[in-house]
């Protein structure tokens, strides 16, 4: 009998993605769904999609989901997890959602060491609204609101989420990955699994930053977008494990009131 080595994840509905061709969301959605399948946690998972391109994530994930207002996902996820501590609760956020309008909610959820997981899609641009500057837009990168490129003098610097969040005592596991290559995709999946395992073990806050493609707003082909991540984005946002305290004993959820 033939062994199935690849199939549609059960935690992913069969709806066709509305995302643009080449968009990284479709890849990350699939990875999250595969991890949920493999861990056998579909029935206890609650997802919190953001305002942004992934706002319709509930059309794709076959798990319980509640749409959060822009940036408020970690506040909602905090509450859901505190009320239902044995569920897996993840928020799925873009760069505007996490690092601009929702920086307070994200920062403090991490700082409290909430036992939730954040999947953070960093594509250095506002996708849904049509390509404006994101907090993670790089210096000199063009967007519809930085037509001459992001200038430090008026726009400030790109926010480095993994670097900042890994410095918070409340964060247990922080990794930055990129879905620009098969190796990167595999690494991203591993990171997502590790984040979810961290949560299921009650070890605290986990965040996986994913450097993701936005060919539409970058005005690049998919292939060139992958190159852009590898050659430009990865220099500003180097992938890697920024914090991993999952192996340390003593960092447990016991501190939870």
């Amino acid at each position, binding site marked *: 009998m033939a062994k199935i080595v690849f199939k549609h994840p059960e935690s992913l509905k069969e709806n066709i993605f509305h995302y643009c061709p080449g968009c990284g969301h479709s890849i990350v959605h699939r990875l999250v769904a595969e991890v949920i399948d493999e861990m056998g946690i579909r029935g*206890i998972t609650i997802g919190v999609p953001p305002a942004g391109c992934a706002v319709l994530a509930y059309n794709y994930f076959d798990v319980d989901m509640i749409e959060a207002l822009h940036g408020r996902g970690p506040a909602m996820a905090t*509450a859901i997890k505190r009320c239902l501590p044995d569920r897996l609760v993840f928020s799925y956020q873009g760069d505007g959602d996490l690092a601009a309008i929702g920086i307070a909610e994200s920062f403090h959820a991490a700082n409290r060491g909430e036992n939730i997981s954040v999947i953070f899609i960093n594509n250095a641009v506002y996708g849904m609204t049509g390509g404006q500057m994101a907090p993670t837009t790089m210096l000199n990168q063009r967007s519809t609101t930085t037509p001459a490129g992001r200038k430090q003098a008026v726009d400030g610097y790109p926010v480095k989420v993994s670097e900042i969040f890994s410095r918070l005592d409340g964060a247990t596991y922080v990794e930055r990955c990129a879905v620009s290559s098969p190796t990167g995709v595999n690494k991203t999946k591993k990171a997502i699994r590790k984040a979810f395992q961290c949560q299921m073990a009650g070890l605290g806050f986990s965040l996986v930053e994913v450097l993701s493609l936005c060919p539409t707003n970058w005005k690049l082909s998919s292939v060139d977008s992958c190159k852009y991540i590898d050659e430009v984005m990865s220099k500003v946002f180097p992938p890697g494990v920024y914090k991993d305290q999952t192996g340390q004993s003593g960092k447990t959820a016991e501190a939870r009131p």
Partner: protein
Amino acid sequence: MNKILMSGNNVIGEAAIRAGCRFYAGYPITPQNELTEYMAEHMRNAEGGVFIQSESEVAAINMIAGAAAAGVRVMTSSSGPGISLKQEGISSMAAQELPGIIVNIMRGGPGLGNILPSQGDYFQATRGGGHGDYRTIVFAPGSCQELADLTMDAFDLADKYRTPAMILADGMMGQMMEPVIFKKPKPRQYPEKFMLRGAGSGKSKFIRGLLLDPVDSEAHNWKLARKYEVISENETRCEEHRIDDAKLVIVAYGTAARIAKGAIKRLRSHDMKIGLFRPITLWPFPEMRLRTLSEKVNNFLVFEMSTGQMLEDVRLALQGYADIEFHGRPGGAVPTPAELANVIARVYEQKD
């Protein structure tokens, strides 16, 4: 049942916990801090109780939305400026049909204003406050006993109609102490089908507020509107005080109504026939009852600790069938019953 002497802020907290509230999130702001502190102290001893001091009022309202979705009875509290921050979340809870209690212990405004008792948030409370076509049930308690009773009732109504409800009191109500008897709360009736607790082996659910298709979105808006109509028909509450022979009726709520009662007592001892109409729900506003009253009373005096907000609802209710005068003390000014009695007497004598 024993009477307990408690301050208003603490009464709300105790009533909430007795009513089964098991999630509270809030951010300190005067004059409601005692409520946040009460929840911090007493949620610890309530089984399954969660207290979070949130990083902001914005986070707090979104936290209670999340906990409400998880199927827990929830409450947050704040005052004026903080309630303004909560508006996006209140609008979203109305859209997502999540039950929850928002307490506003009003202070002087606009802007930072001051920390004294005021009633300037009437428009914000009764007109929805946030964006979009929605309403919030608004209770205006007039005593610590009512703070207890109405807080419990608010939880029941929020569940029944799956909508946020507000307790609108002010710094005076929050700080004053009165003896209270806590009634026995009703058992909660909130179907599991509305709770988001993981799909188990069944079908997954989602709760959303974004409806891109105008057909869906319009239908959702009309569905909410029909719900608000049912609430208006069934949940309006008011108190009528000494109106049987009244020639002039004061219309006031909350602390203003208490002051008015004191003034009426004085004036009645001078044989002035003055009564009080006190809305207990501000939305839905008891407009039919007030209109009926205008069949036998021609003169009304609206008294608010604001420049005149409920005044508009009184005008809408009376539709020109009676004369309406107004006395207002905005910005944290609180008149004494004696001062108000002088104002009322002047109006009464003009009309007599």
